[in-house]
């Protein structure tokens, strides 16, 4: 078993997702079955194979270095769950 209680807690913490005990158990089961299933990739010889991270054949085009002022902070803050004096507001982080 690759994923145990400790591992799932660690991943959940890295993902910033709180899990209750029941959920942890379910995900341990799900993740282990998925990881067992993807294990078959080890059958494939990938020695000297370059990893493919971008399938796009396009070359990054250059553009003019000009500023493009689209300051719309008021509009953007409309969607914020909490805001204060033109900023996003979050719970206090320093004591």
């Amino acid at each position, binding site marked *: 078993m690759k*994923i145990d209680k400790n*591992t*799932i807690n*660690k*991943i*959940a913490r*890295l*993902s*910033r*997702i*709180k*899990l209750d005990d029941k959920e942890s158990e379910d*995900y341990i089961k*799900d*993740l282990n*079955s*998925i*990881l067992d*299933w*993807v294990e*078959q*990739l*080890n*059958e*494939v010889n*990938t020695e000297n*194979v*370059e*990893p*493919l*991270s*971008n*399938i*796009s*054949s*396009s070359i*990054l*085009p250059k*553009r003019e270095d000009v500023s493009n002022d689209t300051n*719309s902070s008021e*509009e*953007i803050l*409309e*969607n*914020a*769950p*909490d805001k204060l004096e033109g900023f*996003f507001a*979050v*719970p206090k*982080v320093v004591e």
Partner: protein
Amino acid sequence: MSKSSLKQTLKDLDTKKISIRELNQDYLKRIKENENLNIFIHFSEENVLKQIDNLEKDNSEKKLKGIPIAIKDLFCTKSMPTTAASKILENFNPTYESFVTQKLLDEGSIFVGKTNLDEFAMGSATNTSFFGNTINPLSQENEPLAPGGSSGGSAAAVAADLCLGATGTDTGGSIRQPASFCGVVGIKPTYGLCSRWGIAAFASSLDQAGIFSHNVEDASILLQSIAGFDQRDSTSAKVDIPNYFENLDDDLNGKTVGIPKEYSIDGTPMEISQIWEDAIKVLEKKGVKIKNISLPHTKYALPTYYIIAPAEASSNLARYDGVKYGFRSDEIDSLDEMYENTRAQGFGREVKRRILIGTYVLSAGYYDAYYLKAQKVRKLIADDFNKAFKECDFIVTPTAPSAAFPLNEKQNDPIKMYLNDVFTVPASLAGLPGISIPFGKDKNNLPLGIQILGKHFDEQQVFNAAVSLERSYE
């Protein structure tokens, strides 16, 4: 009920046989009659009427003027909220318009509403949506069927004739599989053909926008409208977009079709093998050379995909933290608690599963064994196609391993659900264009789909083969 095509409707509008208002009122009526199918996350009659008013005052010539289009609720739209079918984006009102929807607006089309999908496009049945299942319009009274997914709402909207076309996105089959389940045409173009700007990201190296329509001609018209270079998407391709519709040519004489032997999978229903054979026979009669090809790494495509896609998703979905937009939990004693509770309550089960698996395969000590390994196998899969396309002009396969299945089936076993994409995922990994067209029925009279794959940016060949098969089938 005979469904009018986009092509015919454009003619009727042009000759004043019908007005923009009459046309859209007809669609509005059907949308209201079909509310029980839960196809739309957002629909506002008032909004549609406002668009009609504006177009009536507009005297300029526009290619899609007055054409009712449904938009998958993964595309940011300024005139309508955008949710990605997630609680975490409930009440999100984008401050900008996606590239694809802007193109459609520039052409004068009318957005009838935002369609349902699997949450963040993660699923194959439109059953992971926070806003509930969409029901396949082809369902019988007593047995509701899934429309496929993730773009199930868009496929269903076209199938129920609630629009003349719809946008979708396809990461591993999310346009082609629902098109097959709903008996409509769905095309996922080459990775990079349509800008991803303004589409809520799932797996950025795979995500691609595309089109649903009643037929291949309509798809060729609509795809041309949404394709094009955009500097705000760094993977957007600078290629000339041909006039797919004008160039449609159903004469395939002298072309070569590749038939990959690895797509004959144990357990595939007879009916699916049968329509595949039928399609090959039709092509043979049209003078197409049949070439048996091999794509030896096909069986590794799904496990490769289910490492790469969740890995990229776990990174893309990090932005939903309850600070900038969308849902925020009430339990927020500290900043970390705010993040953890917001994401625990805001994401659904499948999305959390994928974030967790993605985080695991990217985490220290596992990156090489999983993510890097998957990227290497992805290279081999892409190379398989490159080799195969030296011997053929296009490839024909079934679209999905089954017809539409009952709602709620396959929900408990993630891997079984993932197998839905067995025929569509390989081309996604290779970034190739693929279309699904309705071809044949199963024993319950449900539609089945044939998939045609082409070379990078050879959408024209894909459309030509599709229109040829479609015309021979009708």
